[in-house]
């Protein structure tokens, strides 16, 4: 069964990259353009994992993770944060917000796939 | 159609221009159209007959007889326009009539006599004989002016 993934990033290029990395590996990829859009797409989607960018308009990644974790059914959904900063404090902030793990951009598609499989099976 | 040898690596479209037989590599021929009235282009060289509507695009048409300095014939219903494609551009060649399609091998071709002063020959790539008739194979690139080397 293919894993359902919601990816939230305001950069079209990044969304394309994520899509290109995951679709051939058999993931069912759903995309959103920012946090607010992500919450909308999340409604009724029940993804196996979520990938989100941090810097986004309208609602950033931290806010998005917060909002996801506030929904009972997504309390345990793995969330990976995409970040260009490998700065430890960003990872910590993401973790405090409830992120499961992180991927440092630019990501290697295989690594992204592997990370997803590690957190979501 | 004439059958000559087995190594048929060239097909020629033969046609008449001012009572002479000419031919073109069929690979460069896109289609053959009946004669329609051309819209003359002002101040164009006299061998440019003008332009016609080829399914919505503007096709320049060249009078091949005038281009080869042969006596131009009165246009009539039997005249046809051979649409050729050269480096991406379509051009129409007005000829008297289309004769045949013949398959030959490269071996059947002979170089034209070296008469460089003869304008007819400068555009003839080679000669071949089919059914005892000499046929001139045109060098399309030399026939169709490519704007820049027009002056030459």
């Amino acid at each position, binding site marked *: 069964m293919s894993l359902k993934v919601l990816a939230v990033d305001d950069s*079209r*290029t990044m969304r394309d990259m994520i899509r290109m*990395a995951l679709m051939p590996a058999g993931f069912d990829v759903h995309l959103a353009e920012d946090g607010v859009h992500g919450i909308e797409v999340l409604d009724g989607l029940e993804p196996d994992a979520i990938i989100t960018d941090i*810097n986004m308009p309208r609602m950033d990644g931290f806010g998005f993770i917060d909002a996801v974790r506030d929904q009972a059914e997504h309390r345990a*959904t793995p969330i990976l944060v995409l970040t*260009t900063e490998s700065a430890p404090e960003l990872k910590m902030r993401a973790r405090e917000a409830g992120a499961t793990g*992180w991927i440092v*951009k630019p990501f290697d598609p295989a690594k992204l796939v592997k990370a997803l499989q590690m957190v979501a099976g | 159609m004439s059958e000559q040898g087995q190594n048929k690596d060239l097909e020629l479209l033969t046609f008449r221009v001012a009572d002479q037989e000419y031919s073109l590599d069929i690979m460069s021929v896109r289609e053959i159209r009946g004669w329609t009235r051309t819209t003359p282009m002002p101040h164009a060289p006299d061998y440019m007959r003008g332009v016609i*509507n080829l399914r919505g695009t503007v096709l320049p048409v060249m009078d091949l007889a005038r281009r080869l300095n042969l006596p131009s014939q009165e246009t009539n219903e039997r005249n046809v326009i051979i649409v050729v494609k050269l480096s991406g551009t379509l051009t129409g060649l007005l000829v008297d009539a289309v004769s045949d399609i013949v398959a030959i091998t490269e071996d059947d071709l002979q170089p034209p006599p070296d008469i460089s002063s003869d304008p007819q020959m400068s555009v003839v790539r080679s000669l071949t004989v089919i059914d005892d008739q000499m046929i001139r194979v045109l060098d399309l690139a030399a026939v169709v*002016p490519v704007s820049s080397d027009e002056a030459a």
Partner: protein
Amino acid sequence: MSDQNDPMAEIRASFFIECEELMEALQDGLQELDDGSEEPETINVVFRAVHSIKGGAGAFGLEALVRFAHRYETVLDEVRNGSLQPDSEAMKLFFLAADHLSDLVRACRDETELDEATSDELLTRLDALLGEDGGSEEVEPEEFEVQGLSLALDLPDLDVDDTEANDSTLYTVRFKPEQELFATGNEPLMLLRNLCDLGEATVRCNFDDLPSLTDLAPETPYVEWIIELKTEAAEPEIRDIFEFVDGLCELEITGPQGEAAAPAPDAPAEEPPAPPEPAAEAADPAPAPEPPANVVPMGNKEPPAPETAKEPEAEKKPATPAAKSVVRVDLERIERLVNLVGELVINQAMLSQSLDEAGLSPHSDAMNGLEEFQRLTRDIQDSVMMIRAQPVKSLFQRMSRIVRESSAAVEKEVRLVTEGEATEVDKTVIERLADPLTHMIRNAVDHGLEATEKREELGKSRAGTVTLTAAHRSGRVIIEVADDGAGINRKRVQEIAANKGLISPDAQLSDSEIDNLLFLPGFSTAKQVSNLSGRGVGMDVVKTSIQSLGGRITINSEPGKGTTFSISLPLTLAVLDGMVVNVAEETLVLPLNVVVETLSLGPDDVQMLRPGNYVVRWRGGFVPLYDLGVMLGYRSHRKTDPGSIVLLIVLEDGSRAALVIDGIQDQRQVVIKGLDDSFYRAPGIAAATILGDGQIALILDPADVISGMGHIRGTDLMLSERKIANE
């Protein structure tokens, strides 16, 4: 362009398109900041634009772009978090950096050479903004490593397959999750499974800490797992599995020789009391009975009242505008559609002509249907043209850069004001406007505006203003470039024109005629060749390029107040409102907008100026007269008999001409068919169209036809009028 079979090439192409949008957002944001915006979102947008460019650039291994964007972003981040307050110098630098970033993006896209020297110079200046503490420390190139990435579509099977055990070692892993681990959506089960994937594992669950049910706190995990793992993998690989939970669990990995990474407090790994479970199956069924603590408490550490938390969310939803749904389409496909619609219009014209000839009653069903068909065709045509329409904003942004660069070059303070950025114009028009507009803007900055000191002397504001406006007016696009400078020095212009032999020294010219001298080929007012506009490219080139777009350009200048250049363009290049006329045996189309009036020649209207040159009397003046049939070589004898039909046309420079034709057929929209550049190009012929009967009609460019004939210019004509009057 991009290889359709290569998804990376496609994404790469799409990345550069996105970059254009990001650059636009960056420009906008910087402008808002410069205008004093205090909105936190403004700097966020600016930061994000640079950040996203960096992100994408990293993915494609564009190191130079990443390097520049990264350090630019670092400085912007300082502004974002409030530790740097940019002054006007800093803002200038930000604009320059944005311009340079945009150059780098284009250079990367076109794979041309990158201007690293400018990068270095700007980066040094940007770093300087960070002050002594920030400057050098941010320059670690390692911090953001570029990782060129090749997207293999057949993804490797994720190193699972190399389990041909050669040098397996036995590790003992003790793992005890802490409460926070569950709050982050991490799942011990997954971790164990990943661990098992590394080799042969035996998993044992230690319930020793599990309190009696009454003492059990639901949020506290009490369980630890001890895994014996026989694997080829090295210890770091094992640690990698626990990367995300580092700090959220107790983790001990004991190596083959029993040397623990951290000494195990107790060593339970030695005794295997629990029945060993087959590692492979351990993955799916629970490796051990899950403690109840595990099931309930996930993320539930501080139960937030979910209702209150959700409500604002629900309210937010309708308020946020739905993301505008946009489809990106290859321009080629649109071109195809435009062509097809062109065909449709022609086809409709043919149909209506044959129905006309059939003599049907105008009230017949066929004629009514035809009317509806015509209406639909027009609507489709408009809609298709709309697809190609784009706001002029991107063009205007490019111009703001031109203003910045040119004002710096001539050391003038210049403010650019733009209006009507949302005005939509055919994409092709926008592209082809860039060069002429650039030249006009440079001209305005260089020649139009006074030097800063001069302005102060005159009591004008120090900074000159260049206003760039776009608007739709009566079916055309009007673009204006206005400056508030000194206005055209008409005396000087006339002198120059006379010195260059463009007009006779004693010519009496109206103000507008003098202004129009600027458009004469070879005219340039620059006394010395300045850095900017004086490179031999004159306004005549501008005028020619505007004309090639079917447009007109006019000047309006007021001494001391400034000069305005107005460009008027057709909305689209694909259709033309034309007047269909007969000349000799041919049918020709003239752009309707040049035709001022139609006249019928009276017996005394035509006068010979000199052999071969005729003028026609019109409203008390004289207008040069040409026979189109003769000019186009359709006939050799001039037709100036009384009763001949004459079209009075106005040319872009405001001068008039009269064209003799044989008859007027119609006024109608025609679809413009370009003439291939590769074949003979007749002067004066702008394009062609296909008429209702399938015949091709040529579309004339009257100015070009006339100039090919040695047009008598307005200035000449003034002289000639006097000459005639004297005779």
